[in-house]
């Protein structure tokens, strides 16, 4: 049985950032992910915001982690070479009644230690001319920002791999190997692995992992589905983050510019029992539309280029702070009932924002658990960004093409993604071996034609680079092959 010091279950942004934080120390670390790629859950389907922290319940772990993590993103994004823009965010009031709510929101933000400012309608319209002219003003949180959440996953896991962490995809956790009350390993779909510690970062499945260790039997994840629209950047440009005045259950339907330049609209919030329920519904899309048009009336359905849904891992953990009545807090703990388990559960929004602080907290929990963390000599926090043809100036593009002609061939015409970029992802530290893996990394196939043009070409490139028949090339995991047989082959 292969032996590790620490095994992380789950390759979402929490697992990936934790892997990176642990790669700093002299530890043998394995991250397992049940899907064919990292970041396929909530980490690649969310609002892509680094929250200022105005919204969480004051005193909650959510508020604390948000506050600690927000300032970390400048360094994290610079080290990892990922797009991040501290644009600030606006909570936009429509009509006089909503303007009255801003003062209460400001007070809550201040309790969370978040800097805010109230703008009048004129100032709001000046800052975002597309906003509903019926606006009565806004609460501005200057420290909010936007990030590419999948890039955050991939860059942090690549940096972890550079520093010695191992990663297994298509590997599902199936149970613990215990010695009395002590975890000594795990069973997976790919065999057993020994370890001294397990970090449970299993997202919507984090309750099941806990229960497998017979801890926190009353903790339950009830996923909440959020649906989104992505709009064509040629049709509409918004460079701000616009929140509505929130309801009791959610921050509401947002309209925001993404680091890719597209406007993102969503999410709604629907509780679901099924942990794979990422279907988009007509009702949900209608709801998002209504919310979006309230903030920006000029948004039209014509400009939609993608619809998708993500699942929030909403838990039912009580807030541990005395006097704070809150039941959906993060769980970030060394499990009480067993040795060797760290639970990172119920990590919904602001989970993406909180990720670097949560990763940091894991190292502290390990120390408290008696782990002597010694820094590795030669640990390198820098993960160099790979070239993105479309982000370069014409001169830089010309130089890149001269250096490697594969960057001269555009494979995805809408997003201008080159063969060079695709090949680089296929041979990256965590190889992108499926179409969707390349899509999430390069943003290929996300434009107006949604991959109709590039798909056959990318399938060919994957087959060539991986030395596989084209019939083995998949969209995502096993069973998602694009092509079934040659045309003249006789059906069996």
């Amino acid at each position, binding site marked *: 049985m292969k032996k590790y010091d620490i095994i992380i279950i789950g390759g979402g942004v929490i697992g990936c950032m934790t892997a990176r934080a642990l790669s700093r120390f002299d530890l043998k670390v394995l991250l397992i992910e049940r899907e064919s790629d990292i970041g396929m859950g909530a980490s690649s389907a969310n609002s892509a915001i680094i929250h200022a922290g105005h919204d969480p319940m004051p005193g909650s772990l959510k508020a604390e982690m948000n506050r600690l993590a927000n300032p970390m993103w400048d360094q994290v994004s610079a080290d990892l070479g990922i797009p991040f823009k501290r644009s600030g965010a606006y909570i936009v009031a429509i009509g006089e009644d909503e303007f009255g709510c801003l003062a209460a929101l400001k007070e809550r933000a201040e309790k969370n230690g978040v800097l805010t400012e109230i703008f009048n309608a004129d100032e709001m319209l000046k800052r975002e001319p597309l906003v509903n002219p019926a606006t009565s003003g806004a609460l501005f949180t200057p420290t909010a920002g936007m990030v590419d959440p999948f890039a955050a996953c991939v860059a942090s896991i690549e940096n972890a791999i550079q520093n010695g962490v191992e990663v297994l995809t298509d590997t599902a956790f199936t149970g613990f190997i215990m010695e009395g009350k002590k975890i000594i390993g795990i069973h997976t779909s790919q065999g057993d692995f020994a370890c001294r510690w397990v970090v449970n970062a299993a997202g919507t499945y984090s309750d099941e992992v806990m229960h497998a260790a017979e801890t926190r039997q009353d903790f339950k994840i009830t996923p909440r589905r959020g649906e989104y629209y*992505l709009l064509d950047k*040629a049709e509409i440009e918004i460079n701000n983050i616009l929140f509505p005045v929130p309801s009791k259950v959610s921050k509401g339907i947002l309209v925001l510019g993404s680091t890719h330049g597209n406007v993102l609209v969503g999410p709604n919030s629907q509780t679901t029992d099924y942990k*794979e329920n*990422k*279907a*988009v*519904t*007509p009702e*949900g*899309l209608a709801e998002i539309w209504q919310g979006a048009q309230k903030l920006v009336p000029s948004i039209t*359905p*014509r400009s*939609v*280029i*993608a*619809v*998708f849904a993500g699942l929030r891992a909403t838990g039912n953990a009580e807030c541990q702070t005395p006097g704070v009545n809150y039941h959906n807090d993060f769980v970030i703990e060394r499990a009480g009932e067993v040795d060797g388990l760290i639970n990172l559960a119920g990590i919904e929004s602001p989970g993406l924002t909180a990720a670097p602080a949560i990763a940091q907290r894991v190292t502290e929990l390990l120390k408290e658990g008696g782990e002597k963390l010694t820094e590795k000599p030669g640990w390198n926090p820098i993960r160099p960004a790979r070239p993105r043809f479309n982000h370069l100036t*014409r001169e830089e*593009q*010309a130089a890149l*093409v*001269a250096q490697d*002609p*594969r960057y*001269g*061939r*555009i494979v995805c*015409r*809408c997003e*201008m993604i*080159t*063969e060079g970029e695709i090949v680089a992802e296929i041979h990256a530290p965590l190889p992108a071996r499926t179409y969707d893996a390349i899509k999430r990394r390069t943003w290929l196939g996300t434009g*107006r*034609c*949604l*991959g*109709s*043009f590039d*798909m*056959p070409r990318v399938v*060919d490139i994957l087959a060539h680079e991986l030395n596989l028949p*084209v*019939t083995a090339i*998949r*969209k*995502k*995991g*096993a*069973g*998602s*092959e*694009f*092509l*079934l*047989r*040659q*045309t*003249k082959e*006789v*059906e069996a």
Partner: protein
Amino acid sequence: MTIKEHYDVVVIGSGPGGLAAAISAKKNGAQDVLIIERDIEPGGILLQCIHNGFGVEVFKQDLPGPSYAQRFINEAYQVGVDFLLDTMVLEITRDHRITATSKRYGFLTIQAKAVVLAMGCRERTRAQVRLPGTRPAGVYTAGTAQRWVNVEGYMPGKNFVILGSGDIGMIMARRLTFEGAKVERVLEVMPYLSGLTRNYVQCLMDFDIELQLKHTVKNIIGKKRVEAIEAVAVDDKWNYIPGTEEIIPCDTLLLSVGLIPENELSRQAGVLIDPVTAGPFVDDGFQTNIPGIYSAGNVVHVYDLVDWVTEAGLIAGKSAARLVQNGPQPDAKTIAVKAGENVRYVVPHTLNPDHLADGEIRIQMRVRQPIEAPVWVEVRSGEKLLHRKGEPYARPGEMVTIPLKPALMDEVKAAGELTVAIVKR
């Protein structure tokens, strides 16, 4: 081949519109003519259209797509058109400077005296028709499936449902059936066919493939691969009719839900786009609002027959050659052509009556609502009927053409604007 830095005419795209434009520019006196094509060989989408039905108007012959293309490719080489293949244009400026990139030729800038935009169109996707459900493998546009089957030689599925009665969808229904697949159903949200009637007869009826009008897809089911779709009937406003849902097991859903002219490069160059056609506003010589930038074929509006695309390319190429030789002409008084009763759009948007001296000008349009009875296609100036033509019926899937003869030159000149209508006889 060495690529020059200067060309008289540069054509973007080597589909039927681009090939015709390049040949015509060369034949009409342009010296250096270049076609830039992003694929590794010329011909455009015709190369994957291995079915027949091409060339009935132009050659009076019924050809498969690649044969039709090859005739023009051969001619282009014969007359000395240069080709820059496997090369993507990144940018065109108002003053005709083209930036392009290529694995074979590197990073290039080329100065043209005139440019013909012939980028064709792209297919509408599931997002644009806002299809609900999961996002598994097995949801493709009909054109992507067509490339896989006809060019690459692979089958993307076994059991298909096709959403949309566009021509590519119906043609793929037949093609997939030939290759041993089962096409369970074709669903069309509109109460009428969106493609050509001949394709309905030859591709669906002849193979007992059921077409359900006023039906759409309510849900896509499957995690890794499509497992089924949920079909539903819709009312006149496309609202689902409760109780009509039906689960159809299948592993692939093909979309044939419309084509959109591909005009991102045009927009960058400052070309104004008609929101109805999604193509440039053009005059009768297919010049856009930017002097020296022409456009031809499906980039202007989506045609039903390739023959008309070729014809448009010939006109655009001739106009470009004329500009190269004569320089810019003084602004003539142009006449606006407007879409009237039951006409969704009309091309060209403006015309120069003096051009009628060179021969007839074809006005082409799409009808808004089908009329399954004899119709008049009317051209009016105000209330005054200038010209009309009878047609046995008018269907949105089939383009309507009315030629303006040179004899009408004086009357067109006197008109402020022309209005085109399609009315019941």
